[in-house]
């Protein structure tokens, strides 16, 4: 009963926050609200028994995404100067979309119904066979890293592409002498060093965040976690340090060549594991051939590719953050 009330409350809050984002003209408010939106979404995922996803949405949606938006805001504008909506097209299109979806989902299976088709076909096989074939307690990690490992390979390369995209767009430091409008960076400082409390508390938290990130990386087989969450957490720790101490010291701590190398190395590791499996006689990404018996091979394969994923995600998030933070410096 309490779950239902809580769920209804969270869902309603989602809608309210989304409407608030739509209506506000101040972009800073909108970005902060979108961070809150992601956090409420993460709580909702947790209520729906999706622990891994809740962790990922919290770190990436509420954490990294908010920081990236703020970084972009500092370089672009503070207010939304949109003119009042001239045509009826957006309203009609959105309403039609919503109407179609509501119409369709009236026939959807009841929430939580154990006899729904989705729970009867592929999912029971995963739940039964993971202990036998892969022997990893977290079934989500088993499916992500092994059964559907090809998808995860694709995902790592999507993140890699985003990194090379941001680097190719924002790679060069801006030539000196160019005017920055609306006076952001010369009026603000890019660190919090003269604010004592954030500085002290922030610096104390950074090692714990990084440690927790490493824990999540290696414990992802046994509990919620894995490469994506871990990489994002470690990156969040480093970003917090950069926010508190200033971008220059952040770049001293984790130089850009290092994070760039991590990015490429992680993606390369994943692809290399796949090729190694082929060389050793199995299919692409068939970890069973990596070791003396299939289950150990699976463990080894999952360990290696999760490491690759963690390296790439951490490297990408840090690189993108540094690209944004150093762009505005005169």
């Amino acid at each position: 009963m309490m779950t239902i009330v809580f769920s209804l409350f969270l869902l309603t809050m989602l809608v309210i926050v989304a409407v608030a984002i739509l209506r506000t003209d101040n972009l800073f408010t909108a970005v902060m609200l979108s961070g809150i939106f992601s956090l409420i979404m993460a709580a909702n995922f947790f209520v729906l028994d999706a622990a891994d996803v809740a962790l990922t949405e919290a770190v990436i949606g509420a954490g990294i995404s908010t920081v990236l938006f703020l970084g972009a805001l500092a370089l672009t504008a503070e207010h939304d100067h949109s003119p009042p909506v001239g045509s009826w097209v957006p309203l009609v299109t959105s309403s039609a979309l919503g109407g179609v979806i509501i119409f369709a989902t009236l026939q959807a299976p009841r929430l939580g119904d154990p006899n729904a088709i989705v729970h009867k076909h592929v999912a029971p096989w995963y739940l039964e066979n993971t202990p036998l074939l892969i022997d990893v307690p977290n079934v989500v990690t088993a499916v992500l890293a092994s059964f559907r490992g090809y998808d995860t390979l694709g995902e790592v390369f999507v993140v890699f592409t985003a990194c090379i995209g941001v680097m190719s767009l924002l790679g060069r430091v801006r030539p000196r002498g160019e005017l920055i409008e609306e006076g952001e960076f010369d009026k603000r400082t890019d660190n919090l060093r003269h604010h004592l409390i954030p500085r002290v508390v922030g610096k104390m938290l950074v090692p714990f965040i990084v440690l927790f990130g490493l824990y999540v990386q290696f414990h992802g087989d046994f509990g919620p976690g894995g490469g994506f969450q871990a990489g994002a957490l470690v990156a969040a720790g480093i970003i917090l340090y950069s926010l508190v101490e200033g971008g220059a010291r952040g770049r001293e701590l984790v130089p850009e060549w290092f994070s760039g190398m991590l990015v490429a190395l992680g993606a390369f590791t994943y692809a290399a594991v796949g090729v190694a499996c082929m060389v050793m006689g199995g299919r692409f990404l068939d970890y069973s051939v990596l070791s003396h018996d299939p289950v150990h091979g699976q463990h080894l394969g999952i360990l290696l590719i999760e490491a690759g994923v963690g390296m790439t995600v951490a490297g990408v998030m840090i690189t993108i953050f540094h690209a944004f933070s150093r762009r505005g410096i005169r």
Partner: protein
Amino acid sequence: MALLGLYNYFVFAVLLMIGLYCVLARTNIVKSLIGLSIFQSAVFLLYISMDKVDGGTAPIIQEGVENQVFANPLPQVLILTAIVVGISTTALALAVAVRIKEAYGTIEEDKIQEMDREP
């Protein structure tokens, strides 16, 4: 429970509408991107709503506990991928927005269109 299920899908539909409306009706680039990320997040809600099983728990097999009912792991895997794809797109789009601001001096699409119309 049926009410909760319908409400889940209803909220999904509403968030989709709000996200798409924000993308279409607002000319500020950063605002549109926030709307785009709301639009993508709504889809996550759709998939994760499918994974719940009555009386189930997160699909982590505990040793020694028999007859556990688990939630469906597959939508969770799909959405983990989709979240990461979403942030990648957002990061790239924000980098493009920063470059647009540097090249055009503004991130309002109507002003950019005016500037581009002049030969």
